[in-house]
């Protein structure tokens, strides 16, 4: 049956190649798409659970822990519930737009997976304009949001859609400029090229190349949080003002597509930052040439190891993004615009210009280069130490009052599960 | 049969014709702008196609210029449309014929 359709298609379009050559090609395409989809499902689902557990800790409660051991299967239960719910289409909605929007949203998000390098050779295609493609394609999501916002025929949804469009168009600029600094420092737009221009050890990462790139990392991270509507920039769906923004009217499976893309986007944010600044999949102490020249099982092993390194770094950033979400309150609309145009855009412009000057003046490996690396490493270490010390101080400040009130010690480290 | 210049020219011609049709028949200024975008895209497709099937990359360089100019054109045109809308509460191009309010 399928074969027959393929043959018909071939004769209609007068395609070259032997009969039935379409079939395997289509199968490969479908297989790749399925692989990406499965990855998203197995990332986005558990991350929803993980995020809720982290949120629980931050809010001094427990979080979902009923479905499966410690609640790890909560996402399956939620998914099943959404799947079984009725798919409601408002009577006054613009039906075709309303029905199509979730798929456009999700498709725009899935298209980013084409260039994300998961490991040394684990990448769909290494486009020569990979980074630019990623910036461009992640801007497409906004059309899906606008479509959903308009199609719902609901004021709140339209507000959400318009806000999202304004936000995305604005934040694309600092995002692109801060990544331009990466391109200037590495001299390539290809994602794999950017990773290969860095090294495995922290002092070989772009993050610690010089203090300006160190700053650009935060600009870039903030801008991509804003581009993907994560708190504190989740104005498009601000539930306290717009109910749920552009997806107010969605229910059931269509709602699930939005949620999928939203949590899956965390992976895109994290891996973009990992590739750009944290050395991607580079294994400390192993030159990429070693991986290229290996064969057989060694090759597979290197792939797995490089994927683990990449996933480890990306997960840390995902955790960071989740913590930011449960720490900072949502910005107001005017504040969101001020943060972009008055602070992030000038910072990104100055930073990328400065990186250009440094790249032009400081040859790699020179004493000045090592000095700059040492300064930025010191900056990073100082930041981490300050962070931990402040956290310790906050804990200790509340310890005695808690003891007096509850009669027990508040010490309850994260590995101790309820 | 493989895809060659004629196919691309065909696509470009259809885009051009549909863009012109939009420009001629629409009253809404934004819709007319959409027609202009289609016509521009038809031209850009030609540039890229000839660059691919000819020699050199000059066509693509020109294409990049074209896209950038289209962006500038769209921004200015939409700013004008918004001004017209504010002044006359309508974006009907056939009614916006007064020079001064």
């Amino acid at each position, binding site marked *: 049956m399928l074969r027959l359709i393929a043959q018909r298609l071939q004769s209609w379009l007068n395609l070259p190649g032997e009969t039935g050559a379409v079939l395997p090609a289509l199968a490969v395409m479908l297989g790749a798409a399925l692989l990406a989809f499965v990855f998203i499902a197995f990332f986005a689902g558990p991350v929803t659970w993980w995020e809720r557990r982290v949120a629980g800790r931050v809010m*001094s409660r427990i979080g979902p822990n009923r479905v499966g051991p410690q609640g790890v299967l909560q996402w399956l239960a939620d998914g099943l519930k959404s799947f079984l719910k009725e798919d409601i289409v408002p009577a006054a909605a613009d039906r075709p737009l309303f029905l199509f929007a979730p798929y456009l949203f999700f498709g725009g998000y899935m298209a980013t997976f084409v260039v994300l390098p998961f490991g040394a050779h684990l990448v769909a295609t290494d486009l020569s304009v990979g980074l630019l493609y990623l910036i461009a394609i992640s801007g497409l999501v906004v059309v899906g949001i606008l479509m959903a916002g308009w199609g719902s025929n609901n004021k709140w949804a339209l507000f959400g859609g318009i806000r999202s469009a304004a936000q995305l168009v604005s934040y694309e600029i600092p995002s692109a400029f801060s990544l331009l600094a990466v391109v200037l420092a590495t001299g390539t737009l290809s994602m794999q090229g950017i990773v290969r221009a860095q090294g495995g050890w922290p002092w070989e990462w772009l993050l610690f190349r010089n203090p300006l790139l160190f700053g650009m990392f935060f600009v870039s991270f903030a801008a991509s949080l804003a581009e993907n509507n994560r708190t504190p920039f989740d104005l498009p769906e601000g539930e306290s003002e717009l109910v749920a923004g552009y997806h107010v009217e969605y229910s059931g499976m269509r709602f699930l597509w939005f949620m999928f893309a939203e949590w899956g986007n965390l992976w895109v944010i994290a891996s973009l930052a990992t590739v750009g600044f944290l050395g991607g999949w580079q294994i400390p102490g192993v030159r990429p040439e070693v991986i290229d020249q290996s064969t057989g099982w060694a090759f597979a092993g290197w792939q797995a190891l490089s994927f683990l390194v990449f996933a480890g770094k990306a997960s840390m950033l995902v955790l960071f993004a989740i913590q930011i979400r449960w720490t900072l309150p949502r910005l107001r609309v005017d504040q969101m615009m001020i943060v972009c145009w008055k602070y992030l855009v000038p910072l990104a412009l100055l930073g990328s210009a400065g990186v250009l000057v440094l790249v032009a003046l400081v040859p790699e490996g020179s004493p000045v280069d090592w000095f700059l690396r040492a300064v930025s490493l010191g900056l990073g270490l100082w930041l981490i130490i300050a962070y931990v010390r402040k956290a310790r101080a906050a804990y200790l400040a509340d310890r005695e009052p808690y003891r007096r009130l509850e009669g027990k010690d508040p010490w309850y480290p994260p590995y101790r599960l*309820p | 049969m493989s895809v060659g210049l004629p196919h691309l020219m065909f696509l470009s011609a259809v885009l051009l014709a549909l863009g012109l049709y939009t420009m001629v028949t629409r009253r809404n200024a934004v819709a007319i702008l959409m027609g202009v975008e289609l016509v521009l895209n038809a031209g850009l497709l030609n540039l890229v196609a000839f660059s691919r099937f000819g020699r050199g990359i000059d066509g693509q360089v020109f294409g990049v210029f074209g896209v950038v100019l289209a962006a500038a054109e769209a921004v200015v045109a939409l700013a004008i449309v918004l001004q017209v809308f504010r002044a006359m509460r309508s974006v009907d191009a056939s009614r916006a014929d007064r020079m001064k309010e």
Partner: protein
Amino acid sequence: MVSALPPAVTPGNPGGVRGWVGHIVRTASSILEGLAVTLSWAFRRPYTIQYPDKVEVPVPETLPEAYRGILEVDLRLCTGCLQCEKTCPIQCISISIEKGEDAVRRLTRFDIDISRCMYCGLCSESCAFDALAHSNQFEAARQDISELTLHFVREPVPVARHKAGEAPPRRPRGEILREVLPGLGPVMSPPARDRRAGQGDPSSGEGKP
């Protein structure tokens, strides 16, 4: 259109480039401060308790005597006066009484639809013999709403005709309910009561946000 922009110059922050840098530094340091606070909560005991598995004293045991839980009727005390049925504003109590051949009035039905009951307490107020009273139970979630209609009469019982002061004492709260509403959980064990009695410190249960 015009939004209330924050003033460019605030006390403690000069305007111009220095103010701009000052804003950035303040933003960065306050974000770090906030992240440190949330990080510190990762090492603190959660305030919430896992209900009901890890509660030290079952909640019904902690409820005051006047708590209006699910209704229960002690048929040894019921005289079949039908006052409760009449008082109920939503008619969730239905009682039938039949007179047998031996001229004894028997209760053949005493049903309370607790899915409709709104726990107003009018029926127990009007019950002169303390037969109908609120228990201290409240967890009665069931799969099927019909399971929430409690049938207190299994087989016809003669109505009570006690003289004043001779009536048997009422059975402990919640005990009858456990017979008619299966799956309500085991009867409280005495040690648990003791523990509760020993917890006389008034500050223990309060002061939580």
